[in-house]
């Protein structure tokens, strides 16, 4: 039982990390109608900024907000320099343009930080396992990820649903021209939304850095999963992204944890050992296919976001 709870926690924690990435993606995709493949690059930049600034300031708690700020600034700069030219064009142009940005950022990171990758070391007080239940020790940092992400989700929900800024963002999503005609600086609004999305991606990158990796191209694989999340959740819906992230995180982890053992009951040991990793990594795509069949618009379609 303890083991099962531990695996569930692993699933929730993975889901939280996915949410941070997917939230920014769904904001940009849903509200600005922009397919941003370079989201993974911003995720990478967040991690590199954090690794550099934490080492530079010698403080985790100081380096992280600075890195977040740096990613926000880079995100807004990217919007002004590159993304603006892409609005109103079709999605293929977005894909091409932002794919170019991926190559650009990968090479830029290679020039600045070198090809070897970096390590973001946690302060020792975070680098421990804590008892979350009697007999169940769980890495403290992973608990921190879960708690912080829930706070970020609440903040986002409040921002989009309860503030004037959020109202403008939602209005801009429905009718860009009308909002502009009413005297709102829609350009600035979009720059802000893109910066917010970038900061969320950077935050996901720096949060995962101490457990996973800081290296070139680190955002590319996880971006695919983030797209799966926003498709399942309903494009443009923060609430959908949250629920879908949890789903995907759980399905992926529980699949990896229990599927091989199930498979061993029906297949030979060797066949199971080879097939299980392949099949369990397919699970989230099967989940997406099932959701698309039942609810083609996703779990929380944009109409009722």
């Amino acid at each position, binding site marked *: 039982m303890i083991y099962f709870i531990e695996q569930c926690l692993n699933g929730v924690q993975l889901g939280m990390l996915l949410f941070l990435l997917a939230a920014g993606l769904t904001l940009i995709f849903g509200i600005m109608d922009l397919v941003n493949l370079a989201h993974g690059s911003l995720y990478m930049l967040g991690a590199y900024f954090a690794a550099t600034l934490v080492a530079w300031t010698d403080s985790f708690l100081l380096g992280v907000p600075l890195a977040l700020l740096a990613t926000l600034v880079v995100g807004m700069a990217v919007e002004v320099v590159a993304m603006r030219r892409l609005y109103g064009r079709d999605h293929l142009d977005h894909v091409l343009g932002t794919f170019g940005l991926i190559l650009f950022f990968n090479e830029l990171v290679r020039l600045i930080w070198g090809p*070897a990758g970096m*390590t973001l070391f946690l302060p020792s007080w975070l680098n421990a*396992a804590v008892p979350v239940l009697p007999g169940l020790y769980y890495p403290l940092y992973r608990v921190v990820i879960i708690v912080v992400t829930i706070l970020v989700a609440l903040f986002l929900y409040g921002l989009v649903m309860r503030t004037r800024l959020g109202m403008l963002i939602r209005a801009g999503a429905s009718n860009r021209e009308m909002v502009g005609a009413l005297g709102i600086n829609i350009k600035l609004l979009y720059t802000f939304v893109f910066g917010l999305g970038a900061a969320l991606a950077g935050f996901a990158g720096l949060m995962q850095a*101490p457990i996973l990796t800081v290296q070139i191209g680190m955002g590319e694989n996880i971006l695919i999963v983030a797209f799966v999340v926003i498709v399942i959740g309903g494009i443009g819906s923060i609430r959908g992204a949250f629920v879908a992230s949890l789903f995907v995180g759980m399905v992926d*982890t529980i699949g990896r944890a229990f599927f091989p053992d199930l498979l061993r009951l029906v297949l030979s040991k060797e066949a199971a050992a080879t097939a299980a990793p392949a099949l369990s*990594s397919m699970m989230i795509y099967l989940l997406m296919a099932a959701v698309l069949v039942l609810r083609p618009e996703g779990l929380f379609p944009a109409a009722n976001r």
Partner: protein
Amino acid sequence: MTHLPIVSTRHLMPLAVAGALALAASPAAAQQKTVKIGFISTFSGPTAVIGNDMRNSFELALDHLGRKMGGLPVEVIYEDDQQKPEAGKQKTDKLIESDKVDFIVGYIWSNVLLASLKSAVDSKTFLITSNAGPSQLAGELCSPYVFSTSWQNDQTPQVMGLYMNQKGVKTAFLIGPNYAAGKDMLAGVASTFKGQVVGQELTKWPDQLDFSAELSKARAARPDAIFVFYPGAAGVQFLTQYGQAGLKGQIPLYTAFTIDETTLPRQKDLALGVPGAQEWVNDLPNDENKRFVADYIKKHSGARPSFYGAQTYDAANLVNSAVVAVKGDTSKKDEMRAEMEKANFKSVRGNFKYGKNHMPIQNFYLQDVVKDADGNFVLKTVATIVENDQDRFHDKCPMK
């Protein structure tokens, strides 16, 4: 041909000029043959550090050889396999078909090598693998045109299995990536480990970097030890997560190819006290090795070579021995093969012999991570675990 084609002088002139230019430019190319070596490794992405270490070591070996082999200048063409089998095969084909290289050296990844192997063997181009050692290559896929300056994948983990027996480990949990080498490694450790394997996990490779589910599983199985194989950057992530899960001190870790000079700068004290096995360690006391390590550190401002580099340094010297034996006439393939089978060069691991499957028969050492006087983390040799070890697939090789 009875009719000469009618060509006006207007057409002839440019041709003549081009011909004259070609004559003026080409004596070097026409008269002075070169030894052409294709080099395949990973030069992009997270594991590019390994490829760079291999290239640095190969270049250093060429420096030490005066950049000549058998009196001929050496030309090396480096190609990036992006850690992908299909890219590796494509680059191998390119080196063989359009560059017409005499040798192909490199290959970190067993799956990339297996995909590329047929092209080299079919075209009778010598391939020297300086890292990957899939079991198939030592057994049924062995070839007169393929040599290894590394090991067969199973050997290093087999050594770790022996060491685990020595340490009195009764139950073990095995974790590794799901590709050719990962399967070999886990099979290798299981073949010599006398205790019970209580669980075995293969993870998606190379993109799964979160091992939380596997670590939870290992903890729940309550083994005496965890054995793990994660080469390159994945080894950094594994050690980090193992530490954060609070397993260090609870369940000891035994490794193969998880801690080396390319990953140590990022693993630091997470790697302290975690044993590994290797056929080469940077402090092996032979003269060739001292020169290799010292010159590498000097040339690359303090960076240390890894076993990937050492094996690649050896590969350059193996190729050199063959070219010297035929005095630069690389068309004499049988003579070159006969020479290489003697392993007639000074290896930085100390001298070794080849089995009939062209895999080295060599010693394996236990290595440990320590802090040196300057506070750097370095690998050092602790003990010799096996001497003159031959891979367990050589009987399956049809070569005589």
